[in-house]
C-alpha cells in the first residue's frame, strides 16, 4: 500500500526536488556575480504570492503556458518530441488578428478568433508530421526550423499586412467584438484563463477516456505493440501533431484577444515569444499530464512575473529565471534523482554519526 502511494507521489516529489536544485543553482550563479540570492528570491516570491495583483498577473501569464505545455505533453504521450509550439503560437496569433478584420457579433467573433488560431496552429504542425511520416525526418529538426520560418514570417506579416497605420511598431489591435473580457481590472487577467483550463480538461478526457487517446498513448509507449494490435501508427502520429498544433494555436489567439492593453502583436513578436519553449519545461515539470501541466504553468508563470520584480528590487537580471528553468529540466532528465538522494542521505547520516563518535 505504502509503496503504491510512493509510486503515485514520486513524480511530484521529483518535480519538487528538481525545483529546489534549480533554485539552489540559481543562487550559486547569482552569488558568483555578487548578487544577493536571498534578497532576489524574497522579491521573487513576494511578487508572486504577496499580492492579489501579482497572483492575477501570474495566472494571466500561465494562461498561454498551459496550452503550450499541453502541446509538448500530448507529443510525449504520443511518442513525439514536438518542440514546434513556438512557431504554432505565432501562426495562431496572426490568424486571430486577421479575423478581427471581419465584422461579426461579439460572442461569435471570439469563437471565430479562437477557431482561426487553432486552425492556423494545426496547419503549421502538418509539415513536420508529413515529413516524419513520409521521409522519416526527426521532428526536433523540422519543428525548430519551422519555428524560425514562422518567426520571420510573423515579423513580415505584422509590418506589411497587419500593420497599424498609426503606430509602426505594432499590428492592428483585435476588434473590440473579438476581445475576451478582463477578469481583474488593472491586470491582464482575462477570461482566457477559462479557455485554457477547459482545453486542458478536454485533452485529459480525450487521452484517457477515448479510443483515439488510448491508441495515441499506446503508440507513444510501445510502437511495436501498437502495430501488433492493428493501430495505425501514422494516423496516430498525425493526430498527435494536430492536437498539439491546436493547443498552441489557441495559445497564440488568446495572447491577442485576451491580452490587454494592446490586443495586438509587436513587430518583434515580443508578447508571444518563448511561450512555446517555456511550454517544454512546463510539460516536463507537470509530468506530461494535463492536470500537472496546469500547476506547472502557474509555477513557470510565477517565475516569469516575479523575475521582473526581482530585477527592480534586487537588481538581478530577469534572465536569471531562464537559467533556473534550464537547471530544473536538466535535473528532471535524471529519473533516478530521488533514488540518488535517498542513497546519499543515509551516507551523510552515517558520516555525521562517525564524526560525532570520533
Amino acid at each position, binding site marked *: 500500500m505504502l509503496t503504491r502511494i510512493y509510486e503515485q507521489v514520486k513524480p511530484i516529489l521529483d518535480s519538487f526536488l528538481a525545483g529546489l536544485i534549480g533554485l539552489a543553482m540559481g543562487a550559486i550563479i547569482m552569488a558568483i556575480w555578487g548578487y544577493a540570492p536571498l534578497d532576489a528570491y524574497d522579491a521573487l516570491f513576494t511578487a508572486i504570492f504577496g499580492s492579489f495583483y501579482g497572483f492575477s498577473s501570474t495566472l494571466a501569464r500561465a494562461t498561454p503556458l498551459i496550452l503550450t505545455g499541453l502541446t509538448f505533453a500530448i507529443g510525449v504521450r504520443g511518442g513525439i*518530441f514536438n*518542440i514546434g509550439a513556438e512557431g504554432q503560437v505565432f501562426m495562431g496569433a496572426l490568424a486571430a488578428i486577421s479575423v478581427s478584420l471581419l465584422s461579426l457579433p461579439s460572442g461569435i467573433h471570439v469563437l471565430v478568433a479562437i477557431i482561426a488560431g487553432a486552425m492556423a496552429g494545426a496547419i503549421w504542425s502538418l509539415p513536420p508530421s508529413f515529413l516524419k511520416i513520409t*521521409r522519416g525526418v526527426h521532428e526536433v529538426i523540422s519543428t*525548430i526550423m519551422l519555428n524560425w520560418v514562422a518567426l*520571420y514570417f510573423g515579423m513580415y506579416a505584422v509590418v506589411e499586412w497587419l500593420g497599424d497605420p498609426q503606430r509602426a511598431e505594432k499590428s492592428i489591435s483585435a476588434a473590440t467584438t473579438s476581445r475576451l473580457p478582463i477578469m481583474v481590472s488593472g491586470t491582464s487577467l482575462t477570461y482566457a484563463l477559462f479557455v485554457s483550463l477547459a482545453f486542458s480538461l478536454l485533452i485529459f478526457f480525450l487521452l484517457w477516456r477515448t479510443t483515439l487517446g488510448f491508441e495515441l498513448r499506446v503508440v507513444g509507449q510501445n510502437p511495436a505493440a501498437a502495430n501488433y494490435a492493428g493501430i495505425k501508427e501514422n494516423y496516430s502520429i498525425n493526430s498527435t501533431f494536430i492536437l498539439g498544433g491546436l493547443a498552441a494555436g489557441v495559445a497564440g489567439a488568446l495572447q491577442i484577444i485576451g491580452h490587454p492593453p494592446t490586443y495586438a502583436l509587436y513587430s518583434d513578436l515580443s508578447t508571444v515569444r518563448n511561450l512555446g519553449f517555456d511550454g517544454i519545461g512546463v510539460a516536463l515539470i507537470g509530468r506530461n499530464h494535463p492536470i500537472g501541466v496546469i500547476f506547472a504553468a502557474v509555477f513557470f508563470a510565477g517565475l516569469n512575473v516575479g523575475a521582473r520584480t526581482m530585477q527592480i528590487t534586487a537588481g538581478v*537580471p530577469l534572465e536569471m529565471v531562464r537559467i533556473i528553468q534550464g537547471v530544473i529540466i536538466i535535473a528532471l532528465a535524471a529519473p*533516478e534523482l530521488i533514488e540518488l538522494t535517498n542513497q546519499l542521505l543515509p551516507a551523510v547520516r552515517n558520516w555525521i554519526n562517525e564524526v560525532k563518535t570520533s
Partner: protein
Amino acid sequence: MEFFTSLLRILVISLNAMVPITLAAVGEIIGERSGVIDIGLEGILLISAFTGAVSAQATGSPYVGLLTGIGTGFIVGILHGFISVYLKGDQVISGVGINLFGGGLIAFGLIAVWQTPGHHIIPASARMPKIGTPYGNISYITILTLAIVFAVYYLVTNTKLGLKINICGEHPRAADVAGVNVERVRFFATVAGATLAGLGGAFMSLDWFGVLTKELAAGRGFIALATVVFSKLNPLLALLGGFIFGFFDSLGVWVSSAAGVKKYIPWQFILMTPYIVTLLAVAGAIGRARFPDKLGEPYQRE
C-alpha cells in the same frame, strides 16, 4: 567582374559560417555513433561563446578565451555524459535543459558582466587574428576545422577506437561481451563531441562575429543536428553539409550589407532561407539516414 568579386566574398563568409555548424555536427557524430544523442548543441554554442568572451577579455588573450570555450564544452559534455550514460537519464530532455540554460546564461551574463541587454562588442585585443584576403578575412580555425574533420573521419573509419565507438552504438551488449567498457566509451565520446561544439561557440564570439548577443547561435546548433542527419554520420559529408548551410547562412549576412538586394526581397525572407534550405536538405537527403541501432538508449548491464 563585379559578380565574381561578390561570389568570392560570399565564399569567404561561407568558410567562416561553416565552422560552428561543422564542428558541432562532427562532434555530434562521434557521440551519436557511440549511442548518445545530444540536442544541447545550441546551448553549448551559447555557453562557450559567453565564457570564451569573458575569459578572453579578462586576460586580454584570445587564446586563453578559446581554451576556456573548449573547456566549457568539455564540462557541459561531462554533465550530459554523466546524466545520459551513468544515470541512464533521458538524453533529449537533458539536451533541452542545456539549451534553455545556455539561452538564459548568455542573456543574464550580458547584463551581469557588461550591463547591456543587447550586444557587446569584443575589443580587438581579445579577438583571434585572421588571415587577410582581398575578399575578406579567413580564420585560422577554419583550417583547424578541416583538419579536425579529416582526423575524426580517420578515427571513426580506420582505427580500433573508432570501431569500439561504433559498436557501442550498434550493439552495446556485443561490445560488453567483447570486453569493451560501453559506459566509458560512450561517456568520453559524448564529452569529445561537446568539446568540439565548445570550440565552435568560442569561434563565434572571439573570431567570426567579434560580438556577443543573446541570439548569437540563431539555431545553428539545430542546423548542426540537421547536418548530422544529412551526413548519415559521415564526417566528410558533414563538412559538405556545413559548407552548404554556411553558404545560405552567409547570404543573409552578405545581403544585410548590400542595400540593393533588400529592395527586391524583404529581409525577413532572406533570413528565413537557411532554415528552409536545411529542412529541404534533410527531407530530400537521398535514402534515409541509418542511425546506430541503440542511439538514445541507455545501456543496462544484466
